[in-house]
């Protein structure tokens, strides 16, 4: 449907960060955000529901890597080429190399501002290209 607000799953353990990003994204008409606190919960929800974009905290790396591989293989309800950005407390080169073939648009190292996260949400959902943005 042209012009509809896109849906984005935000996976992050920090509730204040999640809540603020979700509230502001809705107010600024950037996206409808589903807040998820764990990768395990994200996996379960993505098995049953499609989203337009994903902003994913990679945690220790292993579970999020598995989720990304499932997504890109078409095993989840969302499009296999769904735009994805990653966030991380820290990430080493070896971990980054594992994610590199999985078409990640951006990796954001914490701490970063809500404002920066909103710019990424806007880019992932294409909100920046819609009239009025």
């Amino acid at each position, binding site marked *: 449907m042209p012009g509809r607000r896109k849906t984005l799953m935000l996976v992050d353990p920090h509730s204040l960060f999640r809540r603020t990003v979700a*509230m502001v994204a809705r*107010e600024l008409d950037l996206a409808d955000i589903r807040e998820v*606190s764990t990768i395990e919960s994200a996996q379960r929800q993505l098995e049953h529901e499609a989203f337009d974009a994903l902003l994913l905290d990679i945690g220790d790396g292993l579970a999020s890597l598995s989720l990304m591989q499932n997504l890109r293989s078409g095993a989840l309800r969302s499009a296999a080429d769904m735009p994805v950005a990653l966030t991380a407390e820290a990430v080493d080169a070896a971990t980054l190399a594992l994610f590199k073939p999985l078409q990640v648009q951006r990796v954001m190292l914490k701490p970063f501002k809500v404002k920066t996260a909103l710019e990424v949400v806007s880019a992932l959902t294409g909100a920046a290209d819609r009239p009025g943005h």
Partner: protein
Amino acid sequence: MLAAPIPANDAERLQALRELLILDTPPEQRFDRIVAFARQEFEVETVLVSLVDADRQWFKAKLGLDACETARDISFCGHAILQPEILVIEDARADARFADNPLVTGPPFIRFYAGAPLAPRPGLRVGTLCLLDPRPRRLDATDLAILGSLRDLVQAELLGQRPLES
């Protein structure tokens, strides 16, 4: 200096404030973490959850300020509760209401102020989540939306709605 005006509904407003049972209570992590988050997001020197009592503003949460209260008549928040929208003073020295305010001419030397009113009931604004800085600042639409959302979270906590429980 324009002393903070007293709104016509002040008695009702003060009743709403007292019904929250929060004045003069100890610091609480649920408010402190929102204040800390706002300070990091906006990179300002001071962030407060300020409640405007009859003759004072008292701080339920504070970062960057030692005082636990100041007089209402010199408070910026006493002005902010007069309107539902966020009050932004980009440079207090250039604003006739505040230029010779003792909080501007003396410590903490406020230049920038942004106060988002807290209204536990419609029209009854009991205080603010506010940002203070000794440098002039501007907020854009995204900044205002972020401050407004953080204010909504403080307000929900005031009402016992626990919006940040996972």
